[in-house]
């Protein structure tokens, strides 16, 4: 991830996406925020959920993610973004409140997504995680 090229971008994808589940469990959002770009809607939505869980004292279990990179695109010349297509496996998740009542649960799910990463001041950031556009 120290590299500032395509290989560094690929490592950054795996590292940054791997930050989400620990953030949900611990409520520690610092590393996620450090690697989130200001335009990233997905980053903001997940940060908001993690902060809500922490504020309410809810409990997040499961939800670990594995990421497999399927396609590496060339760096986008206009934006400087490195786009990737990945397959994400997300383990079953349960969120309960302080009394143990289940607020949310999901089964194991998987999906293919477009991941965009870029560099800001030498640090890799997630610019967006989104549906893969249909050509």
């Amino acid at each position, binding site marked *: 991830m120290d590299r500032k090229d395509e290989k560094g971008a690929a490592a950054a994808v795996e590292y940054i996406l791997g930050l989400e589940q620990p953030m949900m469990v611990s409520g520690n959002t610092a590393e996620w925020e450090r690697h989130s770009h200001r335009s990233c809607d997905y980053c903001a939505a997940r940060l908001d959920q993690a902060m809500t869980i922490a504020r309410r004292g809810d409990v997040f279990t499961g939800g670990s993610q594995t990421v497999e990179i399927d396609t*590496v*695109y*060339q760096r986008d010349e*206009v*934006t400087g*973004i490195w786009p990737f297509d990945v397959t994400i496996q997300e383990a079953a998740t349960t969120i309960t*409140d302080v009394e143990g009542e289940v607020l*949310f649960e999901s089964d194991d799910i998987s999906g293919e*997504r477009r991941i965009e990463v870029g560099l800001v001041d030498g640090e890799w950031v997630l610019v967006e995680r989104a*549906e893969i556009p249909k050509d």
Partner: protein
Amino acid sequence: MALVRTTSLLAATTTLGLVLVGVPASGADGTSDPIYDAGLVDDQEPSVNVGATLEEQDALLNGTGGDSSSNTRYFRATVHYCLLSDLENTVLRTVCDEGTETIATGIDCPDDAFALAGLFAVTLGTNGSESAPRLISEGTCVTAADLEAEAERAFQNMPVEPAQIHLEIERDWAIVNFGIHPRTDDTDQVMDTTLLGVPVQIRAYPAEYTWDAGDDTAPTTTDHPGGRWDSADAINLPYPEPGTFTASLTTTWHGQFRITGTPTWTDIDGELTTTDSTDPIEVHDAEVRLTG
């Protein structure tokens, strides 16, 4: 791993304007329970950064038919794009950081117009380098009049759901000369789309309804969707002869559009039609039986 070149520009997303409203339950602490999601649910919108098609690049050039194999890339200095100007290796920095009137936020438009950011081009070199952005056209205020032809084309391709036939009594039979009393809904359908880089809403509204009993009687055309059997708006398909018939409703839709966020709808030339049909209806003679 395949190495693929992508294009970059605003992705034109076309979605029918359906809105789902969630009602949060009340939590134990008296506040509403939050609405949580899995990550793979929160990321189902397409990105507007990278991945738009070359077709959309052509559209940006106002239909001049860009060359897909060209080494020239076009982009507009939109508000969202300029948020990306802090990325390393982006050409947006030189465009957006200048704060000129070519970027979307610097264009002062009236309420019924859209601030269309300036159009820029960069030329890609063979060694992965790119030229400095060149201004192709200044930012401008786009009004509905500028979009009429595109709106007409989009309306003709709009996926309008047929207005559904509802029967006063849902059954598959009727009695001669009593027939059926169908009606439908007069609900508008709205599509969000992007025309020449401008976000637009296109609205189809039902203007005329033609009811065909499916027998030898002439179809009935109304400008209303029908009503209860005892109301002035009631539609009656009487079926004077017994048999098996399928009734149909052909709805004629007219269109309007507006630049998203502006108040005024503008009429679109042309019309669309949709058709809905009933299941077969068995029409019987009523028998009179004297008893007692």
